[in-house]
């Protein structure tokens, strides 16, 4: 009796019905995926490159080179100061002595 019930149950389990999917299911899924953006794994370097291009920032190398050139230009254009420390001290001392007590 138990064997008969086992067999009957097996038969029922093997004959489970599945309603067929619509024929265009795979096509619909593929088409839908075209509207879904992918999450892309990108490296830190790639994300920095993206940041610079999106914000229109100049590339770091160009920034450094520009700073160096600018610094050199400013440096060459500045008037050199030839005074020495002694001169600086003399000037300070003179300014402390009242006018009618200047050096004899």
């Amino acid at each position: 009796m138990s064997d008969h019930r086992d067999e009957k149950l097996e038969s029922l389990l093997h004959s489970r019905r599945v309603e067929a999917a619509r024929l265009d299911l795979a096509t619909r899924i593929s088409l839908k995926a075209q509207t879904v953006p992918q999450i892309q794994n990108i490296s830190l370097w790639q994300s920095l490159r993206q940041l610079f291009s999106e914000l229109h920032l100049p590339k770091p190398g160009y920034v450094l080179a520009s700073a160096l050139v600018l610094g050199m230009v400013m440096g060459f254009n500045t008037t050199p100061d030839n005074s020495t420390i002694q001169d600086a001290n003399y000037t300070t001392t003179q300014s402390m002595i009242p006018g009618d007590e200047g050096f004899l």
Partner: protein
Amino acid sequence: MATPWPDKDDHELLALVQEGSHPAFAELVRRHTERYYRLAFRYLQNREAAEDMVQDAFLKLWEDPHRWHADKNTKFTTWFYRVVVNLCLDLHKKKQPSELNEDMPIIDDRESADEAMQRKQQQIALEGAIAALPERQRTAINLCYDEGLSNQDAADVMAINLKALQSLVMRAKATLKERLKSYL
């Protein structure tokens, strides 16, 4: 000459999907939709719900293909069965699956009307009894009685050994025999 899409294996296709290849994704979908739909239908007993479930599963894969790791030493099909099972179980927790569609066409023309009616009633009772099983027993039954999946494949999907799977199936069948005794 480039390998045609149907000749590429699943791992090759997945590597291409991870690089953003839509044709590779379309081939993967074409190749596997039917099997995952059948599994989803066993859980949900509703064609539209099963189609939506399979679509969701594939779209999640497309959106984040790096969820799949080729070095896991697992077949894609096994891994994706797990994804579909988990989605179906989550949905099942949220709501009760639909009743078996009583308008589902009867295919076997050799049967008389009475036999067909009896078989329909048996199917309804069977699906109700399976839906009432504990999660793991239900999954074991749905996987083991799915054509195209061996018991070892089913065990791999559930991440258990063969003996544990057989134990789950045995307990499930004992419960089903009890609940369906008037039909057996």
